[in-house]
């Protein structure tokens, strides 16, 4: 297997107790109008930890990770990433986002740019690399997700699985210390799902911190250190993966697992 050797990220990813947790949410609340999407959520992710969030749709999983990178603004509570508080100030938002990579359900590649240009775009504009430098980094990550041979094509010319792998490479190019995945395989055909999950497993082996919203319970079992079950905006149960699947304590999780497994 081609293991993804992660180039030294912005902060160390070892589980050093002296380091602040990679992600720490305290008493987080989020409303969409009258709808209470997140209710007093407390959530912590240690460095190098792989956490899978699962639960029925509308349970707040996506809202939770979108609050971490400020795609949604939380209404109360605090968000810390690597010890940095996420406030409404643009500078704080940028500092926190610098730590995070995000992979979306719908890929969100830029359709009018080639695969290579998609990957070099942020390197050139946000990190001010020269084009040759940026292309060097981009090709390295495209090779790691097995799409280097498609570098000159446009996203629409690729399969869904290839597009999602490009999206992963594009996020990795910025060398984040935490990767957030928002249902990365939900829009894919079964064949492509496997190719994306394999890349995610390779990535997990590099020691990067990962938070994944996914319905792929097989992936959760194989890769996650800890699984979190959410329902109606609350974390109902969380446990180390083995215990989560073998001995769920809450009746709601037991019912959920019976349905999905």
């Amino acid at each position, binding site marked *: 297997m081609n293991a993804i050797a992660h180039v030294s990220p912005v902060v160390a990813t070892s589980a050093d107790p002296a380091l602040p947790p990679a992600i720490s949410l305290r008493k987080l609340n989020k409303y969409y109008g009258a709808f209470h999407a997140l209710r007093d959520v407390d959530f912590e992710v240690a460095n190098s930890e792989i956490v899978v969030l699962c639960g029925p749709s509308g349970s707040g999983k996506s809202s939770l990770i979108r609050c971490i*990178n*400020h*795609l949604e603004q939380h209404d109360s509570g605090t968000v810390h990433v690597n010890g940095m508080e996420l406030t409404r100030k643009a500078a704080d938002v*940028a500092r926190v*986002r*610098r730590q*995070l*990579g*995000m992979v*979306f359900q*719908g*890929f*969100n*590649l*830029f*359709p*009018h*740019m*080639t695969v290579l240009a998609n990957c070099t*775009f*942020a390197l050139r*504009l*946000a990190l001010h690399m020269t084009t040759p430098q940026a292309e060097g980094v981009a090709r390295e990550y495209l090779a790691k997700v097995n799409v280097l041979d498609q570098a000159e094509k*446009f*996203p*629409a*010319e690729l399969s869904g699985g290839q597009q999602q792998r490009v999206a992963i490479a*594009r*996020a990795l190019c*910025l060398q984040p210390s935490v990767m957030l995945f928002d249902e990365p395989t939900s829009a894919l055909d079964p064949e492509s799902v496997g190719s994306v999950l394999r890349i995610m497993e390779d990535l997990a082996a590099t020691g990067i911190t990962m938070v994944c919203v996914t319905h792929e319970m097989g992936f959760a079992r194989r890769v996650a250190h800890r699984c979190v079950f959410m329902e109606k905006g609350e974390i109902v149960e969380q446990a180390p993966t083995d215990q989560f699947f073998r001995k769920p304590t809450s009746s709601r999780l037991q019912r959920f697992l019976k349905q999905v497994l």
Partner: protein
Amino acid sequence: MPLMGFVQQIGTGALVTIQVAVLAYLLALLIGTLFALATLKRRLVVNIAWQTYASIFTGVPSLLVAFLFYYAGSGIISSVLSLAGLNVTIDISPFMAAVAALGMVYGAYLADLIRSAIQNVPPGQFEATKVLLIPRPAAWVLVILPQVLRLALPGMTNMWIVVLKDTALISLIGLKEIMAYAKLASGVTKEPFIYYLLASAFFLGMTALTYFVSQRIEQWTRRGYRPVAVKGPAHAL
């Protein structure tokens, strides 16, 4: 046979027509873009200003707007300036009135077109630029604008042709453009057919050129897009 002197005059008129149309269209693009961006979010004051603007300039025929600007524009501008304590009179030429009238009328139409194009760019595109830390101006120019262009271009091309053809009306405020010279030549030579035909040929030629250029731009903005289906939208019929 048309007389060369008149043909030359019609040529000069054609140049004026192009100048008016291009300047009016640029003004319309500017006004349209500003209103489109300002009305993306619901804001009461901006919305009232926009509703007022749109109902006036889409409601009143463009020829009437040109008449108003030409005959009353100078008075309106000096009274506005006198409020600011300035005592100057600015003469409004037919050229200025024509550009302002067409620009402001078609700006109102372009604003709707551009706003709906922006709203049809998937929200995920904006989110991707945010999480990739792309500075906002670069995100708008390099990510959103090309996609807005792709969506708005057919409508923008049509609007340009309408602006171009509307300049023919403006001869009525005394602008010496192609219609004015064609009319003059027909009156003098008593051969209206030939000179009006020449003017028509000019407009046809400009329209053909427009479609040629817009197809090139469209090909560029469509780079990376696949047709919806092999047969195109016709498969739904």
